[in-house]
């Protein structure tokens, strides 16, 4: 599964794109983040406070409970600051 990072999430993780094998037990975005956090301390720190993390599944805004079964692309990023 392709995971994208933007903003300070990208800066802290050190890359903008990762292809990751997601365990079958990971059903929603929250499970995916828990999986990432179990892999490495950096993810654990980045995703410690999920109130500052926004998520898009297949380029549509989603939330922590969104199911990821049909996801091709999941993006994790901070609140948006355009304009």
């Amino acid at each position, binding site marked *: 599964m392709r995971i994208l990072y933007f*903003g300070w999430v990208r800066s802290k993780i050190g890359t903008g794109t990762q292809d990751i094998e997601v365990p079958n037990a990971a059903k929603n975005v929250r499970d995916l983040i828990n999986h990432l956090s179990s892999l490495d301390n950096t993810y654990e720190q980045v995703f410690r406070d999920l109130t500052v993390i926004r998520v898009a599944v297949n380029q549509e805004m989603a939330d922590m409970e969104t199911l990821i079964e049909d996801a091709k692309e999941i993006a994790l990023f901070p609140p948006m*600051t355009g304009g």
Partner: protein
Amino acid sequence: MIRVQEEDFDAGKEIRALTRGKKRIGGVASFIGLVRESTNNETISSLTLEHYPGMTEKILEQIEKDARERWSLHEVLVIHRIGRMEPGEQIVLVVTTSAHREAALKSCQFLIDKLKTGAPFWKQEDTPKGSHWVTERPDDINASERWDTETKAECARFNHGSGDLTKAS
């Protein structure tokens, strides 16, 4: 019409191109956002805008669609720049056109309010002390959410029945 680009834009040229020959348009509203030289008393040497290619365009198109559902609009143009910019440079242009001023003015503000917190852009500021990511401003969230409480019926009263609409291509 939505454009995400690194290049600067010429608002006058864009507006002339948008309205040329469209004689049902009676009002044009525009907003241009510029890079400020300081925020919170900190000097900004440059600003870098990152975005989510593909999703950015989809979200901006959706915001334009939402605006068209609320007001009777003719042409709509949003140009948002990405990449590195210096203070004084233009970041964003929003142009809305309608038969009458109210729909154009209101929808222009709607579009800029919605895109600031709803479209996947992230700003990084470079200052003499180093660079940092810009955080979401409560005022910007309020400005966006305010439109959600304003019903579409209330917006419709600004439309004055401007007849059949020319959809932007």
